[in-house]
């Protein structure tokens, strides 16, 4: 690039070198200062990704926060915590209870109508010191790929300009190499060689490697140590509650055990359901009582059915069979009807009753029967 008689391009490239190095050094120094300051002061930058802390802190704000122990957290502090799902939430403390160095925080976004559903239990939290509106957008932009690429390019360019082009040994060292060559051409190659020899290449390379190695270690350490800005959700939330009411039925006594008719050897008892619903949801339990003995007829009469046949065998099962020795005798049997539901519900109060007659049969009187009284 710097051929004899072409000094203008040479000056331009020098200007470029200065710009790249100065710009790199300035931005780099700023970053280093910020990193060191952040580490020393324990400051964590927060980028607000949403606006539930509005209007105090809007979406896109960059806030600086400082880690404080649980004991120092107070109601109305704006703090940043991690939710159970690992998301950073920054909201205002609505209540705080400290126990054994751990605080249970109820947080609420200023723009939210309700506090966060999840209480946070923390040993420490980042308390927001102040915020800069919109600055979070800039920080976020810096993380974009194109800006990252340009930054890398700048660093790479600066390193290239400063550490190559010496011309001692690298063929591709560019302008400086050619310039040296040109000078060498005028004075002969020997002085150049002598100069190079005066500063042994080995020492130079070693020196450079040590320097760069040290710098790399420092940089790597700083990168690990600095507090990285973290995105935080000032998460919105909302609630809505639907409600309904339920009441329980009271099973009605079947007061109208209305019908009794002969049905073969037995009788058919009929009733009407007293369920307040046309659905006739109640099952019915028919109980026979003979003297001191009583038994429920099983199974209960299904809902929707409103009759039950009572046969001699039913009465015998209820204790009527005890009377079987009495020739030609007849015994009154009390029928009781109750409504049931589910597995435990049964109608209370006085049940409907009706009396039927059990007649023991014999060779003289014929079949054993149950008849309406």
């Amino acid at each position, binding site marked *: 690039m710097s051929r004899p008689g072409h*000094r203008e391009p*040479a000056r331009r490239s020098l200007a470029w*070198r200065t710009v790249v190095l*100065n710009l*790199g*050094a300035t*931005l*780099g120094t*700023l*970053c280093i200062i*910020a990193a060191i300051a952040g580490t020393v002061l324990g400051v964590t930058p927060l980028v607000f*990704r*949403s*606006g*539930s802390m509005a209007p105090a802190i809007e*979406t*896109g704000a960059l806030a600086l926060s400082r880690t404080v122990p649980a004991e120092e957290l107070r109601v109305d502090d704006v703090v940043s915590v991690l939710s159970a799902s690992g998301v950073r939430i920054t909201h205002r403390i609505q209540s705080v209870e400290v126990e054994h160095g751990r605080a249970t925080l109820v947080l609420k976004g200023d723009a939210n109508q*309700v506090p966060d559903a999840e209480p946070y239990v923390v040993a420490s939290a980042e308390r927001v010191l102040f915020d800069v509106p919109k600055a979070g957008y800039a*920080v*976020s932009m810096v*993380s974009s790929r194109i800006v990252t690429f340009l*930054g890398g390019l700048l*660093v790479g360019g*600066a*390193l290239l300009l*400063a*550490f190559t082009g010496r011309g001692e040994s690298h063929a591709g060292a560019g*302008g400086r190499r050619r*310039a*040296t060559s*040109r000078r060498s051409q005028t004075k002969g190659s020997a002085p150049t060689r002598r100069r190079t020899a005066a500063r042994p290449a080995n020492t130079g390379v070693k020196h450079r490697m040590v*320097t760069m190695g040290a*710098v790399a270690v420092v*940089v790597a350490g700083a*990168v690990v140590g600095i507090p*990285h*800005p973290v*995105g935080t959700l000032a*998460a*919105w*939330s*909302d*609630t*809505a509650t*639907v*409600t*309904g*009411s*339920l*009441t*329980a*039925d*009271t*099973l009605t006594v079947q007061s109208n055990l209305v019908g009794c008719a002969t049905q073969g050897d037995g009788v058919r008892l009929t009733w009407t359901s007293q369920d307040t619903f046309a*659905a006739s*949801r*109640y099952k019915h339990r028919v109980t026979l009582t003979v003297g001191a003995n009583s038994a429920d007829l099983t199974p209960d009469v*299904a*809902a929707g059915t409103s009759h039950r046949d009572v046969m001699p065998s039913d009465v015998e099962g209820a204790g009527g069979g005890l009377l079987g020795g009495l020739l030609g005798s007849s015994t009154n049997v009390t029928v009781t009807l109750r409504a049931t*539901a589910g597995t435990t519900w049964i109608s209370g109060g006085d049940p409907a009753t009706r009396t039927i007659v059990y007649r023991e049969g014999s060779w003289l009187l014929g079949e054993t029967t149950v008849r309406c009284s």
Partner: protein
Amino acid sequence: MSKHAASRPARRRSGHRSGKVRALLSLGLLLGIAAPGTLAYWSDSATMQGGNFSSGTLNMQLSGNEANPDNWTNIALALGDMVPGESVAAAFTVDNTGTVTFNYQATGTATGPLAPHLTIQAFVGGTGDPTNSAGAGNLRTGTCPGTSTGSAQSLSASPLVFPAVRPLAASTSESVCFVVKLAIDTPDALQGTTGTVVEIPFTANQLGA
């Protein structure tokens, strides 16, 4: 650069040294790049979707009702004179009337004498109305359209009614339906009781929270 530098070796050497220093200082930029780089991680992680920043509003309604701070009484979610084994179905929509996607979840709660004996089962995505049958000889039974999100759960445990939070995009709605059932073995002593209230609070959280 070559000409100047070549003609003044001393200055050239010092220029090189300062150039090296500046180049090394520029490495500090890596800090700047590395730091906001964590943001890229956030936006790529599963807990964040869409853009880095969300501004707008988050609002949830139930069938067009804010239902907050005052509860919304759904007249379908009511049944009088229940007997054991009966159930009622009520359907409504969860509406995202804000401008950001949210995740919602609901908790089934009940107070009152029947509360320990109630179960709730959730259905989503149904079209049409639930049916509440009352045929002769039958208990009243609520049936929901849509897909069941799981088996019935006891309301006494205040369960989350959905097995996982449900995302709902801005300006969309989802149909939900609940069957609330009185257990078949509800104790006899609870006949005629009143004042049982079912409350299903819904919570919507911004995606990622």
